[in-house]
């Protein structure tokens, strides 16, 4: 197979343009849902009457964007793997790589960027509103900088005042910050698993996805509980173990989990999505 058969920038551009022409309505609808939800929260805050800090708003904005962002593949690409509905997609003359990249660009770049920018703009607009429950400060920085987001969330959460706990959390955060990505990138990366599951299941996509994630979550919890029990057993049997060693072990585990979830898992999901699109039969 020649390179032209695998990838052509011209064909990729046309594929993205074609898909945007077909999907602009669900993109706008999903963005509309995000904005309406944020407005509903703003209305609830108005009733409450208390000023809302940037940290609280950044947290709720990130939550709404994450939920709708994760559901977006189910709206945008719900038919592409179905036997009857997906025929037009399958016979479309672009390569599997171009179809996968186009899906990545629309789901993980265009949609998150558009919805985040519009949501931030709405928040900025609401800060100008002269109501009692004022929205003060900007949350733009929070969405585009991991450090700012984590700092804002930490100050908002008003963590435990126990000095040891504060020290532990601070050290954990010092570990996270170099590895963490801005919330908007996080949203794009989280989507990868949902894109894969959306292409994997042909019917009852959201239901099966939730069941799959629940299954993975249960397995993860079991592994964590077993690990924790064994660590505590170890600690009881060897009371002279240095707590710093345990702490370092936890930090390493935490780092590994972050690297796996932030970098390895999304890449693996997109590679699997590519193979799913390539192998799927209609």
């Amino acid at each position, binding site marked *: 197979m020649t390179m032209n058969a695998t990838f*052509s920038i011209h064909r990729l551009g046309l594929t993205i343009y*074609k898909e945007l022409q077909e999907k602009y309505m669900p993109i706008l609808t999903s963005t509309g849902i995000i904005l309406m939800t944020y407005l509903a929260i703003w209305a609830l805050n108005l009733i409450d009457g208390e000023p809302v800090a940037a940290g609280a708003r950044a947290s709720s904005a990130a939550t709404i964007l994450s939920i709708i962002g994760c559901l977006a593949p189910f709206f945008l690409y719900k038919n592409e793997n179905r036997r009857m509905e997906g025929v037009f997609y*399958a*016979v479309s003359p672009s*390569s599997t790589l171009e179809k996968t990249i186009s899906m990545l660009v629309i789901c993980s770049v265009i949609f998150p960027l558009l919805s985040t920018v519009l949501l931030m703009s709405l928040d900025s607009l609401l800060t100008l509103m002269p109501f009692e429950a004022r929205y003060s400060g900007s949350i733009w920085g929070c969405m585009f900088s991991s450090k700012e987001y984590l700092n804002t969330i930490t100050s908002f959460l008003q963590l435990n005042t126990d000095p040891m706990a504060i020290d532990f959390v601070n050290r954990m955060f010092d570990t996270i910050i170099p590895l963490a990505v801005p919330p908007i990138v996080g949203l794009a990366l989280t989507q990868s698993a949902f894109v894969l599951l959306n292409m994997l299941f042909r019917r009852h996509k959201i239901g099966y996805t939730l069941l799959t994630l629940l299954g993975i979550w249960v397995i993860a919890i079991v592994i964590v509980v077993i690990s924790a029990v064994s660590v505590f057993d170890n600690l009881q049997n060897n009371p002279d173990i240095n707590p710093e060693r345990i702490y370092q072990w936890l930090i390493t585990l935490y780092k590994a989990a972050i690297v796996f979830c932030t970098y390895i898992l999304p890449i693996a999901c997109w590679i699997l999505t590519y193979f799913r699109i390539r192998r799927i039969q209609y």
Partner: protein
Amino acid sequence: MDTNNPIVKIEHLKFNYRKHIVFEDLSLELEAGRIYGLLGENGVGKTTLLRTICGLLRAKSGECTVMGMRSASRNPEMLKDIYFVPELFVAPPISVKRFAQSNSLLYPRWDAAQFEKLCLTFEVDPTYRFDKLSHGQQKKALIAFALALNTRVLLMDEPSNGLDIPSKTTLRRVISECATEDRVIAISTHQVRDLENLIDPIIILDRSGMILNASIEQISEKLLFTMSQEPDPEAYWSENSLSGYYQVIPNRDGMPSRVNLEALFNATLRNKETFKKLFK
């Protein structure tokens, strides 16, 4: 362009849906400049064959190539020259015009003016939302789009299903107008009367594979479609009517006759092994 080279080549194709074997050893070639009629009873694999040719399905073994490229690999160079009109499809919630505009972007021989003209011929308004049209209108819009793409291979699965009688006549006319020397059109149908005088050669499939693959000329050389008062003892198939017996008999004297597709289909199904040998 050498039109005698097969555009579609199928060699020893084996296909099954779990335990249901559809093709065990199917070999077939489709040449340019022809409109192939793919006939067969329900469930013999007409749709499966078309879907395999355009790469929607992957065979268990054997090879299916389109213009020298493996169809299962869905190479874009192949896909830009092939289009499949499914029997049943879900129209997207956009206008026919937008569907045509966006889906035609990757086809190099797309002719927008031809599409407009075909929509007019089929009496389909392209500004209407695709999914809001009736089934027949949706089908006509998709056929107009498929024909205006001007791909070298056009596969149509039961295109006349759901069309009213005038539309079936229009369908026959536009397909014959759009058939060119460098193009191969394959139409699967079990409503043979709808496409009479259009399809040539005829391919008849059954559960054991292909029974017949012959041009109308070859068929009329070997078979005589005739009406007589007495039944012929060697008739492959006969039907009694008020005016006598309509029969399909061996063409012993090389008499010309008009091939009746329905009679041919019935005769083939009743004499599978004989016809396999006759048209080998």
